[in-house]
């Protein structure tokens, strides 16, 4: 079978007849630095990018169509595969939406206490794992290979913990509607504490390695400034919005689950006039992720020190049949605010499920952010907004 031409996607720009000194280069979909199957159509004037148009959809796996044909519990593994790096938080976001809709039914007792603590434990560990991968791959994109190996070494420890907890390394299907699927194995909390004690000084080591590295600073400081107004208009949330200086985190501002019981800070970007760091540049977005790992360690420590209450791990219910109605609920995933819009007609399958993906919103800003920059800066931007194509395309 011959390779078919891809002329249909480039039709728009060939019709515009690019100027004779401009070059149209396709970056991706197979590219080591595009964090997945993203295609950037670059209109270049030498090294300067006149326009970078993102083309997505190379990983469109029809998640929403599947959701209309499967029951709520069967949809949970599919949410894993949306943002596969932070799968626990995806499960959690979906279960929160279904539980919010079910709370309109008086027979639903709510998620048990023990399950909430287990959810926080799993979610925060996964946040650390996700930020570690963002740190490692960002370093690799910029050109430093060592952070990648260090990040994966620590990620392996977290994945080993998850494997003990629920049996899977990457796509967990652990947080289910009404609770969690399994209780803790014996000795698990000691293992988590051992990991936390090992990991906390490592964050400072990684900051010394990459965050304050002169070459890294030159590549990322002052590059692609997305200020607060632009971030809000483009729907960028999570570290992309906090890097622009806005202290907004759903865990503190609209607390869900039991996050209001824990004491933690929300790191935001900062202006450092001496170094040239501006609010909303690549360095600040990246720095927020490193600081967030410290806060997650704090939360996990509080969960371990406070002790987990006894009790069931899943709410008792016959079938997951939310009342007819609709709900839009958001939760704080590592990449931003993950939203689920569910329309139910009272049966076991949803009528409509729409996943609002934070990476989709952040990526839409790429076209405006990249005008006038160089190709190497495009790599720095993509790494700093930290996209996962499974979530962008769903």
């Amino acid at each position, binding site marked *: *079978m011959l390779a*078919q031409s891809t002329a*249909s*996607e480039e*039709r*728009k720009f060939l019709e515009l007849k690019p100027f004779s000194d401009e070059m149209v280069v396709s970056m991706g979909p197979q590219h080591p630095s595009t964090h997945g199957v993203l295609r950037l159509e670059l209109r270049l004037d030498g090294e300067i990018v006149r326009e970078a148009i993102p083309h*997505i*959809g190379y990983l*469109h796996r*029809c998640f*929403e*169509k599947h959701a209309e044909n499967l029951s709520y519990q069967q949809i949970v593994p599919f949410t894993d595969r949306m943002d596969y790096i932070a799968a626990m938080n995806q499960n959690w976001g979906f279960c929160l939406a279904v539980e*919010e*809709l079910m709370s*309109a039914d008086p027979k639903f007792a709510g998620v048990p206490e023990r399950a909430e603590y287990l959810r926080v434990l799993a979610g925060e560990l996964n946040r650390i794992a996700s930020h570690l991968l963002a740190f490692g791959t960002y370093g690799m994109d910029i050109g430093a290979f060592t952070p990648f190996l260090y990040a994966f070494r620590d990620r392996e420890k977290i994945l080993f913990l998850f494997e003990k907890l629920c049996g899977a390394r990457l796509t967990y299907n652990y947080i289910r509607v009404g609770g969690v699927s399994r209780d803790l194995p014996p000795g698990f909390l000691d293992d988590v504490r051992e990991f936390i004690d090992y990991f906390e000084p490592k964050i400072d080591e990684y900051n010394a390695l990459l965050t304050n590295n002169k070459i890294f600073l030159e590549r990322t400081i002052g590059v692609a400034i997305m200020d607060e107004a*632009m971030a*809000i*208009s*483009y*729907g960028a949330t999570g570290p992309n919005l906090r890097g622009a200086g*806005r202290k*907004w985190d759903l865990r503190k*501002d*609209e607390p869900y689950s039991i996050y209001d019981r824990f004491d933690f800070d929300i790191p935001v970007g900062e202006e450092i006039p001496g170094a040239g760091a501006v609010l909303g540049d690549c360095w600040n977005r990246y720095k927020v992720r490193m600081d967030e790992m410290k806060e997650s360690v704090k939360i996990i420590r509080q969960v371990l020190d406070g002790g987990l209450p006894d009790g069931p791990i899943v709410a008792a219910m016959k079938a997951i049949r939310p*009342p*007819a*109605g*609709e*709900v*839009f609920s*958001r939760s704080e995933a590592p990449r931003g*605010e993950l*939203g689920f*819009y569910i*329309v139910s*007609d009272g049966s076991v399958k949803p*009528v*409509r499920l*729409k996943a*609002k993906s934070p990476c*989709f*919103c952040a990526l*839409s*800003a790429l076209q*405006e952010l990249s005008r006038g920059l160089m190709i190497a800066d495009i790599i720095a931007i993509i790494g700093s907004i930290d996209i996962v194509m499974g979530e962008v*395309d769903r």
Partner: protein
Amino acid sequence: MTTQEIFSRLQSKFEDNDISIETEAVLEPFIVVPSSLIALISEHLCRESDLAFDSLQCLSGVDLSASDETMEIVYHLFSMTHQHDLTLKVIVPKVEPHVPTVEHVWKIANWHEREVYDLYGVVFDGHSDLRRILLPDDWEGHPMRKDYKEPEIYRGMKVPY
């Protein structure tokens, strides 16, 4: 501000009998808006300082049933300044649906509207770049509609299992 107060504000400003509020909704009420007014209402909601809905959280198309003749476009708005939220709905016919675009109000609407066009076939009038975003350019049909049948073959590749 609650949805009821915003509804009264919109009714007095736009004096259109087609703006209605659905209070029987299970969790939160939502406002149904005629498609001709959605762009003006969005601008009003975003620019007014005490409403300040500066964030479009989600723009989705909903097709409730294959036998229905209409579809819904649902807008979830949120205000980062006042921290109140609002849900707007626009009912469009399935045959030749047209809705004015809101991409000049919230920049993220550009991509969200392209996605609704791609998956549901709704044309957003005034959109700067309305083309398919998730599916290939030469795809036929709009998959998220309830009456969609997947193609047997696409560019020489068999599609069903």
